[in-house]
C-alpha cells in the first residue's frame, strides 16, 4: 500500500496552512513529519484522515483517489495526541463501538477485541474507564483502537508527547513491534527530533506549511537543505557564523575539536551532559558551542579547529544549502 499526496493546499481563515505539499510513502515505511508548532503537520494528518478537505490537490492510497471520500471509507487507523478515548465507555466498549457500528457480529467483535487486548497486554483493564488508566495504558488503548480498524494506513499524531521520557523509551520498541513491522505506510507527526530520528525511515520537515526537506534521518542531519533545517535538527544546535561574501557557514558543535593550531578561545561556561560536555566559547569568530567527550581536559595552549569538509555552506539570501557535504 502506498500513500501519495499530490501538491495539496489548505487555507484556513485565509491563512495558508499547507502549501503545495507532495509526498510519497511506501509499504511499511514510516515517515515522520517534523516541524515547529504551527507548521501544518497536524493539518497534514487531518487532511490525510479526511477530517479536513483539501482546497486543491489530491490524495491517493494504492492508486485510488481518496481526496473526496469520507474518513470512514479511507480505512485509517489514527492515534490522536489526546488519545481521544471515549471517557464514558469502558475500555472494552471503547474498542468495540466502532466494530458494532460497522456491522460486525457480536461474536466476531468479542474475538477481535480480546485478541487485541491480549496483544497489548490490556485484558485486565477491559472493564475500566479511561480515567482509571495511566498515560501509557491510555496510549496503548488508543493504539489498539487504531489496530482494530485493520487500516490501510496509520496516522500517529504526537503519540508520545504526553508521556514522560522513561515511558517513551519503553514504548518505542512496542510501537515498532505493533505498527512499523506491518506493510502499511505509517505517518508519524512529532515535534521531537529524537523520536523522529529513532522511529522513522524518512523524515519530512515542514515549515510554514511547506515541505522544506525530505530524506533519511542521516541525510537530514548530514546535509540539511537550508539554514532552517540545519538549526531545527540537531541538539545542541548548529553554530552559524556571521554572513560573509553572501555566504553563511555552519558547523555542528561535535565537529569542532581541540587542536594545536586553529583559533583562540575563552570558555564562557560549560554544560555537563553525562557522556558529553558542551562548552560555550567566545572566539574571534563569535560565540561557538563545542561538544566534547566528558573526560576531556583543556589546557591553556589548546586552540579549536574543524575540518573544512564538515562546514555547511548556505546562501545568505535564499538561506539554502550550496555545498554537497
Amino acid at each position, binding site marked *: 500500500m502506498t500513500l501519495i499526496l499530490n501538491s495539496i493546499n489548505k487555507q484556513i481563515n485565509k491563512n495558508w496552512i499547507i502549501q503545495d505539499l507532495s509526498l510519497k510513502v511506501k509499504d511499511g515505511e514510516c515517515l515522520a513529519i517534523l516541524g515547529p508548532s504551527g507548521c501544518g503537520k497536524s493539518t497534514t494528518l*487531518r487532511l490525510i*484522515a479526511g*477530517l479536513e478537505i483539501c482546497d486543491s490537490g489530491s490524495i491517493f492510497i494504492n492508486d485510488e483517489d481518496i481526496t473526496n471520500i469520507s*474518513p*470512514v471509507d479511507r480505512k*485509517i487507523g*489514527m492515534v*490522536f*495526541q*489526546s*488519545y*481521544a*478515548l*471515549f*471517557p*464514558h465507555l469502558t475500555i472494552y466498549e471503547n474498542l468495540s*463501538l*466502532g466494530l458494532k*457500528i*460497522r456491522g460486525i457480529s457480536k461474536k466476531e467483535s468479542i474475538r477481535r477485541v480480546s485478541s487485541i487486548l491480549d496483544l497489548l497486554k490490556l485484558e485486565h483493564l477491559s472493564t475500566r*474507564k*479511561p*480515567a*482509571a*488508566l495511566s*498515560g501509557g495504558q*491510555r*496510549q496503548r488503548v488508543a493504539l489498539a*483502537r487504531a489496530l482494530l*480498524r485493520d487500516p490501510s494506513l496509520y496516522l500517529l499524531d504526537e503519540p508520545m508527547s*504526553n508521556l514522560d521520557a522513561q515511558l517513551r523509551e519503553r514504548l518505542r520498541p512496542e510501537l515498532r513491534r505493533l505498527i512499523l513491522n506491518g506493510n502499511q505506510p505509517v505517518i508519524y507527526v512529532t515535534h521531537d527530533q529524537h523520536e523522529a530520528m529513532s522511529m522513522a525511515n524518512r523524515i519530512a520537515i515542514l515549515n510554514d506549511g511547506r515541505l522544506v526537506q525530505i530524506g533519511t534521518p542521516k541525510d537530514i542531519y548530514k546535509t540539511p537543505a537550508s539554514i532552517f533545517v540545519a538549526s531545527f535538527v540537531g541538539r545542541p544546535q548548529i553554530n552559524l557564523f556571521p554572513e560573509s561574501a553572501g555566504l553563511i557557514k555552519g558547523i555542528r558543535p561535535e565537529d569542532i575539536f581541540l587542536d594545536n593550531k586553529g583559533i583562540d578561545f575563552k570558555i564562557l561556561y560549560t554544560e555537563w551532559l553525562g557522556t558529553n560536555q558542551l562548552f560555550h566559547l567566545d572566539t574571534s569568530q563569535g560565540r561557538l558551542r563545542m561538544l566534547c567527550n566528558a573526560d576531556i581536559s583543556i589546557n591553556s595552549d589548546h586552540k579549536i579547529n574543524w575540518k573544512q569538509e564538515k562546514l555547511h555552506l548556505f546562501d545568505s539570501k535564499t538561506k539554502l544549502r550550496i555545498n554537497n557535504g
Partner: protein
Amino acid sequence: MLLIWSLSPLIWQLYTSLSTPEALTRPLEINEFRWTFDNYKQIFQANPPFVRYLLNSLIVGLSSTILTLAIALPASYSLAKANNKVSKISKIILLASALFPYFLLFLALLEFAREMNFGNNLLALCIPYSALCMPLAVLLLTAAFKDLPNDLEEAARLEGLGLINRLRWILFPLIKPAIASTSILVFLFTWNEYPIALTWISKSELITLPVAIARIAGSSVYSVPYGAYAAATVVGALPLLLIVFIFQKRIVSGLTQGAIKG
C-alpha cells in the same frame, strides 16, 4: 447562617401547614389541638383533589422539557459546530431574548392561544413554555457541546459513526450533566409559572399547581385559609425537592474527566 436564611421560610410553611387555624392566630397559647393533618386532608379531599393539579403540572412540565430538549439539542449542536457570522448573531439574539421579561408577552400569548384554540389544553401550554425556556436551554447546551474536545468526535467519525450515532453514543452521554441541569431548569420554570397558566387554562380540573394554590388562597373573600394554602405549597414543593435530589449526582459527576491525557 445561609442555611437558616434559605430554610426558614420552608420551615415556617411546614409549621403552618401542620397547625390548626386557632393555633396560628394565637401562637403563644398552649393548645392541645395544636397539630393537625386537617389541612392536608382538606386539599386532598377537595373537588377536584389536589393530586389532580400535581398531575396536570407534571404533564405540562414533562412535555415542555421534552419539547425544549428536542429542539434545543440539535440547535445547540449546530451552533457549537458552526463558526460563522450567522451563528454568532443568533447567539447574541438568543442571549437578548433570554433577558427579555416574559411577563410582557403574556397578553400577546393569550391572543395567540385564542386564535389557535389552545385554551384549556394542557399539552398546548408546552409551546409557550418551551419557547420561553429555549434561549437559556440553547445557551447552556451550546456551552456544553463546545466544552467537549473536538478529538472525541473526530475519533468517532474515523470509527465510522455517522452524525446520529455520534450524538447517540458519544455526545449526548458526555453532556448528560448539562442535559440534566437544563431539564431541571425547564421543569422548575413550568412548575412555577403562573400568568400564562392562569390565562390559558380556565377549567378547574385542568389548572396547574401555582394557579390551584392561588385559588385556595383566594377561595374566600373574608379569610385566608393559611393552613390549606401552606399544605398546598408543601405538597407542590416536594416533587421538586425529589427531582433535585435524584439528579444531583448526575449534575455534579465530572463525566468528561479522563478524556484527555493528563
